[in-house]
């Protein structure tokens, strides 16, 4: 059963590539198609920061010792629960300021308005108990969720696995990740695979709060446990993650975008983080809003993009970290589903967008981490690079006009080996939320066509009434271009070469070419 679910989720991860540490010297002047992976624009020069193809399961071999240590430290599950409940007050603080207006819980679940939401997400336990619903209260939906569980069980009784139900303009997707069942109901044109990927993110979001070990432990002891008791106050994280999934290309591309910054300044910041190390420190991450400034990691330890997005989501969903130094347990499920890391989260300066996340293995390490941050800040504030960084914050993005390609409205470019992507800000024509989500929808369609599980494609060109789109995937990069409907095929073709040249020229600024380790 579980093996099945694992397999279906592993397939989309295979789309990304394992880090490549060699071949960095052969960076072509003019990047052309057919580039070897690792030499495409944006590829890191020393070693990759993230792990892609390898999931947590692949890492266990190396990570075994640490995991055991982690487990030892965490001790009894009951103990963990107490820790978690203790943390609840922090979580609740977050809750106050976030998205109360978007959470339309008290909606009538029989109304047309409820039915017509673009995307519903439900989480339930294998006993059919509601855990989460995006719209409407779990109480009002308990019978609906009961039916969902019944459908899952009936198909399971036949030694089979339910995947999805399709009606015109609506589909229901099921993901069983014991001990949880996740169900998505969507009116978008997304494929089953894309919807499953989103459900998987939600699953990992829940695991990141509890660890899988604890989750299993709870349900083994009490099958009809009401998990909402433990998750109360954290629903906003899931709400926010769902919002991101509709809007953030990074989650679609399995990649992260960077704050544009001169490489000289970025290198100074990175080495600052590298110097502020500590025994238990595993990852130091500096964020500017939703953009990565730099990431320094312990040698041999990789961060999976899913884990990083969960961290982004945690930081981005809450303003309470602004009030001082935060200290919160977090499970990074792609790294290790069994134990908690402890994250020190703080902003460099009170009103700054720069947020520093120090991930430690030691629960008692708060003061140590606090000290690391101070050391980093002191060192950085003496350097001119800090000024450059603050300047860069003023223009965290760039307009597509800078690329100077006629009729080009927007694009996404992902360097596969570095796991980083770049994209300009939305142009005039896509200013409204609805328009931006529509454009994201188009990218999602292109993405799922190119990454079809059994019939992948090299390139996809679509010419419609509102825009012309071109998508292209090679072993080194993925590229998605959006042109005005006036753009021709000849133009699209020449735009690819022009754009790749431009990205090569700007890669020092747009990507992190020399990631560091401690």
């Amino acid at each position: 059963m579980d093996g099945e679910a694992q397999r279906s989720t592993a397939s989309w991860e295979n789309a990304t590539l394992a880090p490549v540490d060699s071949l960095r010297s052969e960076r072509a002047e003019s990047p052309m198609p057919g580039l070897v992976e690792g030499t495409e624009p944006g590829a890191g020069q020393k070693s990759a920061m993230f792990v892609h193809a390898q999931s947590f399961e692949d890492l266990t071999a190396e990570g075994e010792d640490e995991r055991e240590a982690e487990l030892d430290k965490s001790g009894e599950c009951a103990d963990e629960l107490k820790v978690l409940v203790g943390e609840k007050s922090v979580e609740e603080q977050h809750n106050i300021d976030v998205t109360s207006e978007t959470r339309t819980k008290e909606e009538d679940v029989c109304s047309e308005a409820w039915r017509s939401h673009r995307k519903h997400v439900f989480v339930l336990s294998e006993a059919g108990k509601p855990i989460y619903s995006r719209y409407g209260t779990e109480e009002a939906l308990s019978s609906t969720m009961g039916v969902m569980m019944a459908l899952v069980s009936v198909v399971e009784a036949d030694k089979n696995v339910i995947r999805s139900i399709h009606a015109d303009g609506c589909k229901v997707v099921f993901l069983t990740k014991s001990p949880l069942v996740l169900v998505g109901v969507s009116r978008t044109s997304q494929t089953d695979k894309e919807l499953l990927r989103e459900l998987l993110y939600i699953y990992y979001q829940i695991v990141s709060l509890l660890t899988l070990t604890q989750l299993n432990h709870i349900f083994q002891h009490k099958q009809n446990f009401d998990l909402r008791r433990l998750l109360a106050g954290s629903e906003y994280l899931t709400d926010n993650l769902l919002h991101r999934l509709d809007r953030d290309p990074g989650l679609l591309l399995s990649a992260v975008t960077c704050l544009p910054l001169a490489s000289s300044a970025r290198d100074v910041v990175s080495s600052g983080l590298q110097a502020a190390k500590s025994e238990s420190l595993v990852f130091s991450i500096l964020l500017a809003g939703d953009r990565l400034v730099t990431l320094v990691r312990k040698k041999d330890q990789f961060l999976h993009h899913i884990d990083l997005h969960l961290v982004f989501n945690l930081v981005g969903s809450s303003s309470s970290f602004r009030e001082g130094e935060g200290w919160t347990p977090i499970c990074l499920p792609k790294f290790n589903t069994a134990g908690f890391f402890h994250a020190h989260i703080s902003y460099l300066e009170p009103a700054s967008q720069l947020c520093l996340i120090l991930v430690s293995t030691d629960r008692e390490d708060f003061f140590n981490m606090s000290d690391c941050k101070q050391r980093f800040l002191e060192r950085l504030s003496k350097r001119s690079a800090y000024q450059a960084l603050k300047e860069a914050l003023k223009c965290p993005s760039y307009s597509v006009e800078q690329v100077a390609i006629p009729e080009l409205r927007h694009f996404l470019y992902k360097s596969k080996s570095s796991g980083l992507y770049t994209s300009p800000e939305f142009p005039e024509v896509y200013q409204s939320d609805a328009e931006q989500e529509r454009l994201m929808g188009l990218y999602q369609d292109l993405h799922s066509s190119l990454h079809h599980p059994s019939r992948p494609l090299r390139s996809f060109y679509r010419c419609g009434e509102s825009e012309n789109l071109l998508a292209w995937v090679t072993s080194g990069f993925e590229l998605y271009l959006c042109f005005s409907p006036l753009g021709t095929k000849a133009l699209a073709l020449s735009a690819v070469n022009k754009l790749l040249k431009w990205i090569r020229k700007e890669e020092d600024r747009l990507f992190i070419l020399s990631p560091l380790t401690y």
Partner: protein
Amino acid sequence: MLMISPRMASGMQEKQYTPSLLNFFVYNPSFGQREGEEEKKILFYHPSDVEKNEKIRNVGLCEAIVQFTRTFCPTKPAKSLHTQKNRQFFFEAEDNFWIVMVVRNPMIEKPNKDGKPPTVEYQEEEILDTVYGAVVRQCYSMYKLFNGTFGRAMEAGGVELLIQKLEKFFYRYLQTLHLQSCDLLDVFGGISFFPLDKMTYLKIQSFVNRVEESLSLIKYTAFLYNDQLIWSGLEQDDMRILYKYLTTSLFPRHSEPELAGRDSPLRPEVAGNLLHYGRFLTGPTNLKDPEAKFRFPKIFVSTEDGYEELHLIVYKAMSAAACFMISASVELTRDFCEQLDGLVGPQLTLLASDICEQFTVNRRISGPEKEPQFKFIYFNHMNLAEKSTIHMRKTASVCLTSVHPDLMKILGDINCDFARVDEDEEIIVKAMTDYWVVGKKSDQRELYVILNQKNANLIEVNEEVKRLCATQFNNIFFLD
């Protein structure tokens, strides 16, 4: 169907299984609503030897899926259920009458060492919903063509009669479903038209008029040559399903005698009738036989206020076939058949050789056929016209295509993309095998082209398709 994969893994053979029919059933949830009477909901179940409780459970699951989906979209019913092992297709053919087809996903069986049972891997992304959804609807249309609606059987003889009719029809029909070779053409369900010059077309039209005038019993006529339609007096949707029956079932069953030599025992008795090659494909095989029965299959076609029942007479001379439809209330006699044979036989024989001659002349003008760089499928939703250079001649058992099945599925994927948006579009993709596939949708027309020019770029592909449109569809405007 079992195919042995050419791939041999370390001396052990992998077995590859194509999609196959697991279950096919018809049920009505409003029957047998009392506890313990669930079996009454089931009107037909294939295979019939399935245990009663399993039938009830499978129907129950379908009911639950349909009901559950209504929570989210009350107006649009569930159409399919995907599971790891199979796909189920739901179709509410008439109020409360549901037809369900369960198709097993293709799978690969990998043998294990040490006598362990083989590992089975299901290929879950191979079946296209649009294709098999269309197959289920086609099953119903075919039932309706020969039996009328379910409601009609209910009125005439209650549930018992309906069950009988379903049994009788589907028992044979399901054996003719070849699920492994279904593709985009099933989605279109189109009609292939025979290209003809004006003169010959007028000749055929006047032939039809003459026959209808002389034999006033004839209500509708259809004329086909070489399995392609030339003239039809029926409504489009009726002709579409009749065409499907003729070309995939009736004609293939009768093609052998003509191919057989003059003295072959397969050749029907034409003694004393050397004036023409005409013969009945439905009804009596030999008019001279004193025992001959003058019974023809009955079909149901739509009228303004319902449907009417007709005798279907199919009469063929060489490659030309004429279908004559006569109200079922009239009893057909030997006299009538002899009259028809005498009138139609010689004329149809003559027409057939005229068309054949013209056809060969045209072929000669267009030059010797060399393997083109492209293959295409064209479909027009307005007149149901379809044209495919991908499909070889259809036979009763298989429909051969000349391209890789994965490419056919990419065509299906593009067709789904088109169906989602109601506007003119063009999609050009390059497959991993470096084939280019182009889809164009313009107004009511769809064109799909597969190009085998691996080193071409987007612009060259576009030029190639433009040339194709100019030569094959010179009067049709496609979005550039």
